C-alpha cells in the first residue's frame, strides 16, 4: 500500500464509522451534539493524559468517552431549566469544557504533542506515519486499525439495537411504555458517538468529524424514505465524499480534511436540488405542473357548468375566455392548448367544446369538491 492510498482508506473508514451513528443523531434532532462532543472530548483526553502521561494509552479513549457523556448529561441538566433551550444549552456547555482543556494544554502541556491546530483541522496526511508494528513487521498505519475496529463496533451497535434505536427515536414515550429504556439507549448512543469522535478527530480533526456525522446522513435523508436505506446510503455518500475530496485535495494541493468537508457539502447541495421527491427542482416542477393542471380543470369545470345553458355560446368563446376566467390571453391560450393536447377539449369554430373525456373529468372534479 502506498501512503496516499492508506490515507484514503483511513478517511473512508472514518466516514463510514461516523455516518452509521449520524443518521440517528439527525433523526433525534441532536446533530449539534456531535459538535459539542467532538470538542469536549478533548478535556477527557487531556485529563487522562495527566493521569497516565502517555498519548497512546487506551485510557485516553476512556477519558474521552466519559467527557462526552458528561457533556450529554450537562446539556440535559442545563436544558431542564425552562428558559434555556436545547441549542443554547449545547452552546453553553461545550465551549466551556473545550476551553478548560485548551487552557490546561497551553499552561501545562506545552512540550507535548497536543497541538490545538491539529485538534481542529487534523492532519490526515500524517496519519500513516504512526505505524502498527507486530513482531518487527510493519502491518500498516495504526489509525487504520483503530478506525476499522470502530466501524465494526458501530455497525454491530446499530445492528443489535436497530429496532430499539428506531422506536426510541421515533416515539420515546411509547418505547418507554413497551419496556425499552430510551434514556439508557440515548446514553449508549452518545457514548459510541464520543468514542468515535475521539478516535476520528485524532486523525481528521473535529471539523471533519462533524461534517462526516451530519452531512452524509442529511444527504441520505433527502434521498430515501426508509431508515435502513438511509443508514446504508449515508455510509455510501460518506465514502464517495472521501474519495472525491481526496482527489480534489491532490488536484488543488490543499488540506485533505478541508477538501473532503467541502465535497460533503457539495454532495448535499446536489441532493438538495436533484432529490427525486424532496428536491428543490422536483418540488418546483411539481408546483408548476399542479398550477397548469388546476387551471385546466378550472376551464373544464367552467365549460361543463355552462353546457346546455343558453349562454354557452358566449361562455365558451375562445376570445372571451379572458373575461370569464380573468386570465390574460396568452395564459388562456396555453391552458386551452394543454386541454386540447390532453384530449379534453375540441375547437369548433370560435367555441370550445368538451370531449366525452373532458366532461367526465369535469364531473369527477365536481363530485370530489362537493
Amino acid at each position, binding site marked *: 500500500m502506498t501512503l496516499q492510498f492508506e490515507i484514503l482508506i483511513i478517511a473512508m473508514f472514518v466516514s463510514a464509522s461516523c455516518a452509521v451513528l449520524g443518521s440517528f443523531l439527525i*433523526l433525534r434532532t441532536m446533530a449539534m451534539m456531535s459538535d459539542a462532543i467532538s470538542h469536549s472530548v478533548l478535556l477527557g483526553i487531556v485529563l487522562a493524559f495527566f493521569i497516565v502521561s502517555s498519548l497512546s494509552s487506551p485510557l485516553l479513549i476512556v477519558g474521552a468517552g466519559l467527557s462526552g457523556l458528561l457533556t450529554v448529561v450537562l446539556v440535559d441538566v442545563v436544558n431542564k431549566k425552562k428558559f434555556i433551550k436545547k441549542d443554547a444549552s449545547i452552546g453553553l456547555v461545550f465551549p466551556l469544557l473545550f476551553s478548560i482543556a485548551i487552557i490546561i494544554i497551553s499552561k501545562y502541556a506545552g512540550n507535548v504533542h497536543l497541538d490545538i491546530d491539529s485538534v481542529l483541522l487534523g492532519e490526515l496526511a500524517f496519519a500513516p506515519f504512526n505505524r502498527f508494528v507486530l513482531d518487527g513487521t510493519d502491518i500498516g498505519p495504526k489509525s487504520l486499525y483503530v478506525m476499522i475496529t470502530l466501524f465494526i463496533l458501530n455497525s454491530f451497535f446499530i445492528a*443489535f439495537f436497530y*429496532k430499539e434505536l428506531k422506536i426510541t427515536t*421515533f416515539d420515546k414515550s411509547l418505547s*418507554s411504555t*413497551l419496556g*425499552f429504556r430510551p434514556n439508557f439507549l440515548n446514553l449508549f448512543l452518545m457514548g459510541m458517538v464520543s468514542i468515535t469522535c475521539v478516535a476520528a478527530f485524532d486523525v481528521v480533526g473535529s471539523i471533519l468529524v462533524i461534517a462526516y456525522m451530519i452531512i452524509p446522513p442529511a444527504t441520505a*435523508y433527502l434521498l430515501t424514505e426508509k431508515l435502513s436505506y438511509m443508514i446504508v446510503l449515508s455510509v455510501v455518500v460518506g465514502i464517495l465524499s472521501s474519495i472525491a475530496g481526496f482527489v480534489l485535495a491532490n488536484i488543488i494541493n490543499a488540506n485533505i480534511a478541508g477538501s473532503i468537508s467541502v465535497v460533503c457539502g457539495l454532495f448535499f447541495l446536489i441532493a438538495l436540488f436533484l432529490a427525486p421527491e424532496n428536491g428543490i427542482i422536483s418540488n418546483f416542477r411539481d408546483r408548476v405542473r399542479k398550477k397548469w393542471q388546476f387551471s385546466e380543470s378550472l376551464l373544464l369545470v367552467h365549460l361543463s357548468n355552462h353546457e346546455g345553458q343558453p349562454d354557452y355560446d358566449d361562455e365558451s368563446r375562445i376570445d372571451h375566455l379572458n373575461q370569464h376566467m380573468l386570465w390574460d390571453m396568452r395564459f388562456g391560450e396555453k391552458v386551452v392548448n394543454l386541454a386540447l393536447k390532453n384530449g379534453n377539449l375540441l375547437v369548433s369554430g370560435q367555441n370550445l367544446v368538451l370531449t366525452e373525456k373532458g366532461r367526465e373529468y369535469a364531473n369527477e372534479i365536481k363530485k370530489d369538491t362537493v
Partner: protein
Amino acid sequence: MDEKYTLEITDLTVAYDNKPVLWDIDLNIPEGVLMAIVGPNGAGKTTLIKAIQGLVPTAAGRVLVSGKKYSENRGLVGYVPQRGSVDWDFPTSVVDVVKMGTYGTLGWFKRPGKKEENMALEALEKVGMLDFRDRQISKLSGGQQQRVFLARALVQNAEIYLMDEPFQGVDATTEKAIITILKDLRSQGKTLVVVHHDLQTVREYFDSVALLNVRIVASGKVENVFTTENLQATYGGRVKFLDQDLSQNAV
C-alpha cells in the same frame, strides 16, 4: 366493594417545581368501560395518562394494573400518545409504524417477522388503512395519522388502552370510524380511557367519565356524573357556555 377494578389509582400526585399539576388523584376504573377524561386546558389530562405509565415522575401515589404494580403489568396497557408527539417526517412506512406496537411483546433484540407483519396488516384493515400500508408516513393526513396510531395500539393487544386526544384534528368520518373501533374493543371486554375535549359528544360516545381539574372532581357513569353542577365545579368561570351545552344535551 365487589366491583372489579382494572386500574386503581390512589393518591397520585405530580408536581413541577413544587407546583401540583395533579393533586391526590383517586380514580378506580372498572373493567370494560369506555371512559372519557375531560377537563379544561391545563387540568392535567395528558399528565394523568403519562403518570399512570410512569412517563413523568410522580411525587406521591400508586397505580395498580389488574391488582399489580404498573411495572409488572405494563404489557396489559396499550398507549396512544398525542399525534403531535412524534416526528412524522421520520423515514418509515405506515406498516412499519404499526409493527412498532408488537415490539413490546418481542422484547429486546428480537426482530419482527411474518407474524408481526400479518398482525400489522390486519390492524390496518380494521382502521381502513390497508391501502396505505407502504405509504411514507409524512404523506398522511391528520386523520390518517391518527388511524395509524390506533392500528399500532391494536397490535399491542392490550387489556387497557390509554388514549391521548385520539379525535384531535380528525375529520368527521375518521372520528366516527375511531369511535366504532373503540366501542368494538369495549365489547371485547377491553377497558378504554380516553382524553377528550369535546363535551358535546361525551354522552354519545362514552359510558363513563372522569372530570379532572388538577383534582378529580367526579368520576363514574356518564348519567350520574356528567351534570351541570359537576361541570361547573370542573370548568369554573365558563359555565354559561356549558349551561347551553347541557340543556341541548339533556337526557
